[in-house]
């Protein structure tokens, strides 16, 4: 234990000077990360960046929810280092990402496959040697395979049956039963993180709003908070309240849509059709705020771009109450229909210990009984003053993931009513100054899929040396793969919908 290093302790939304980050030998770095995660911390981010000398530095951000603090430390691993993943499974995606982006090899990684199939940043050599004639191509990997009598393989995607983003799913089946599912993504890779080096510029906020288009508010808010921290911007309380209303409206629209889609996947059409419509009602409420159904243009560093006048606030409340009544009548049908419950219960069950080991987040984690919610653990904006109860369920199955969404719908409605009743007066935007140079800030929000992490590191001019984005889907895709084990393959659409993860948020 004497090899462990002392990390820097700080808070989300508070910038720290990069020279205060302890840079420790690899052994101490590994020991600290592994020990802290064993003791209940979570690896919120692990990423690489290039130093002035061209060396690669790894930065680990650990979240300590019980103390409400973050811990950071760095190391310079050279071309290769002993992987964390065998001792700390939640590092698996991060280490694959570091290997792909920076060509640093995590030795002993049990699942070292590309995530997004792009060449490393800055023309570095790839850890997966490729020739010009045989470039990286999504889906072209050695999939895990089983052999034996009656074992068969099913390949799905990248183009699926519905109106949905692309990804590839490879099932190893014995008859109907799935033994293993491997998910290979990267089809949506648009080079966002690469383009953010040297930002911010006039395109940056729009990248944030389209990182994952159904989470426009969640990501734009995380970005705005990062800039406000670095630029000493004070966000007026009215803007904070409007942001939180928009964030909860985004959650409402997506949770309602998911419940409708889950009903549709088990052939229960009344709730499917009602929810499809009610989801639109919530999107239209976001459009009432800013003109766009996804909240594009609403969140800007310093505050919000649109105010809510008295008449619009009244209309928002009136339409919210109507939608609230409609959604209750639509969703109550689910829990009262044995044909629905029989399909939801004990389908795609995820064990809480797997959930914890993989560092899963959002409603997926809460459906395994974990009290994991940024709004509660690391409150930001209005949530520092107005608590929203954490909704959990313990069964870890499709039902739990659906029911947690229903609980959250009710909490979000109550929260918005309360915010509207006591909307602070005053301006909706404050000034954001020049960004602090040579600094690091971590910004967290709870999007509807779970924890959103943005980490900004600035150079001497206050430009981004690195801007790391962790969408909740980055963690949770592995959860879906595990939930499918021992399930009939025909339950895949239902399990998949109960996670409803983002492809572009993962592929960036």
């Amino acid at each position, binding site marked *: 234990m004497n090899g462990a290093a002392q990390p820097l302790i700080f808070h989300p939304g508070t910038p720290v000077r990069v020279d205060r980050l302890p840079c420790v030998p690899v052994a101490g770095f590994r020991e600290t990360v592994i020990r802290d995660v064993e003791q209940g911390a979570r690896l919120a981010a692990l990423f690489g960046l290039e130093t002035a000398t061209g060396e690669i530095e790894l930065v680990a951000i650990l979240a300590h929810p019980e103390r409400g603090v973050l811990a950071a430390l760095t190391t310079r691993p050279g071309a290769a280092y002993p992987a964390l993943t065998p001792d700390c499974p939640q590092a698996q995606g991060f280490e694959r990402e570091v290997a792909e982006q920076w060509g640093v090899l995590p030795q002993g990684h049990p699942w070292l496959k590309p995530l*997004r*199939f*792009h060449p490393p940043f800055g023309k570095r050599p790839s850890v997966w040697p490729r020739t010009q004639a045989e470039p990286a*191509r*999504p889906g072209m990997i050695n999939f895990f395979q089983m052999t034996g009598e009656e074992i068969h393989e099913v390949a799905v995607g*990248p*183009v699926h*049956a*519905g*109106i*949905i*983003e*692309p990804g590839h799913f490879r099932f190893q089946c014995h008859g109907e039963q799935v033994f293993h599912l491997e998910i290979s993504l*990267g*089809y*949506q*890779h*648009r*080079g966002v993180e690469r*383009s953010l080096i040297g930002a911010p510029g*006039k*395109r940056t*906020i*729009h*990248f944030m709003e*389209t*990182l*994952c*288009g*159904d989470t*426009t508010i969640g990501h734009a808010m995380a970005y705005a908070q990062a800039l406000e921290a670095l630029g000493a911007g004070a966000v007026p309380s009215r803007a904070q309240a409007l942001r939180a209303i928009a964030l909860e409206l985004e959650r409402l629209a997506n949770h309602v849509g998911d419940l409708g889609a889950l009903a549709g996947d088990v052939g229960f059409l*009344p709730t499917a*059709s*009602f929810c*499809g*419509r009610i*989801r*639109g009602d919530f*999107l*239209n409420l976001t*459009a*009432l*705020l*800013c*003109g*766009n*159904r*996804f909240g*594009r*243009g609403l969140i800007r560093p310093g505050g919000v771009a*649109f105010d809510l006048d008295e008449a619009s606030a009244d209309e928002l409340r009136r339409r919210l109450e109507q939608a609230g009544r*409609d959604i209750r*009548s*639509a969703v*109550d*049908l689910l829990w*009262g229909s044995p044909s629905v419950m029989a399909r939801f219960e004990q389908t795609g069950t995820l064990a809480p210990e797997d959930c914890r080991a993989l560092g899963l987040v959002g409603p997926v984690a809460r459906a395994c009984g974990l009290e994991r919610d940024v709004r509660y653990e690391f409150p930001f904006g209005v949530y520092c003053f107005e608590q929203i109860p954490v909704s959990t369920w313990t069964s870890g199955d499709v039902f739990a993931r659906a029911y947690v969404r229903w609980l959250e719908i009710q909490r979000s409605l109550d929260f918005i009513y309360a915010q509207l009743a006591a909307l602070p007066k005053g301006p909706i935007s404050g000034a954001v100054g020049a960004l602090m140079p040579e600094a690091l800030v971590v910004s967290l929000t709870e999007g509807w899929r779970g924890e959103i992490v943005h980490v900004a590191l600035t150079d001497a001019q206050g430009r981004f040396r690195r801007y790391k984005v962790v969408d909740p889907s980055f963690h949770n895709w592995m959860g879906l793969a595990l939930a499918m084990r021992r399930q009939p393959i025909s339950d895949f659409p239902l399990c998949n919908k109960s996670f409803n993860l*983002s*492809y*572009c948020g993962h592929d960036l």
Partner: protein
Amino acid sequence: MLKILQARIRQGHRTVAYPRGEPVLPPRFQGCPHFDAGRCKAGCTACAEVCPTDCIQRTGRDGWQLDLGRCLFCGACARACAAGALTFTQEYRMAARTRGALLLDRDSVPKVEALRGAMQNIFGRSLKLRQVSAGGCNACEADVNVLGTIVYDLGRFGIQFVASPRHADGLLITGPVTRAMELALKKTWDAVPEPRLVIVVGACAISGGLYRDQAETLNGAGALVPVDLFIPGCPPHPMTILDGLLQLLGRLKRP
């Protein structure tokens, strides 16, 4: 069963009156931009400078051109225009049959010419589409999906999304077309029997949009397949998409 019927009665009939009635749009909806060139200050390029996709260009001595196919409808240009020469209207009808028709240089909105002859006979009353997302952020996808809900009830116009390209009359493409999706999109296109249509939805699929000139993308679907209908927006409002589809099929009587 009784509870289901009760809920069904409670929820009521919720399909929009459109196309018989006018669509209801949010008051802050940013539709087709309008240039009042007479109010432009000489030598001022404020709108072009703030545009995140550089979709506004100066042409000639005092002319302007705005590329609807790249516009994100973010309104940054209108806010930057001190003279109030550039505004966003409530006009939701913005689809066009050609890329060139999206280059606005005067007070006009793009028009959609309906399919003619054999194409009109084949697709006019029944159009089956296969959707391909190729780098889309799931906003365009979501607002295409919403057309299938009871609110818009796309089925009443004979338009339907199908699972297989082999059952489809055409593709509806979203996203800037990532290099990673190039092969999959091409294969999907090859699987659609002729005659076939391509409809592109959103700034990304039209021109690359915000992701234009990223090494990872192909600047839209036009690089791979011939496009029959362009529907601008980021994402387009469902009404903009529906209007484009119905005009293409000659199902709307436009004033």
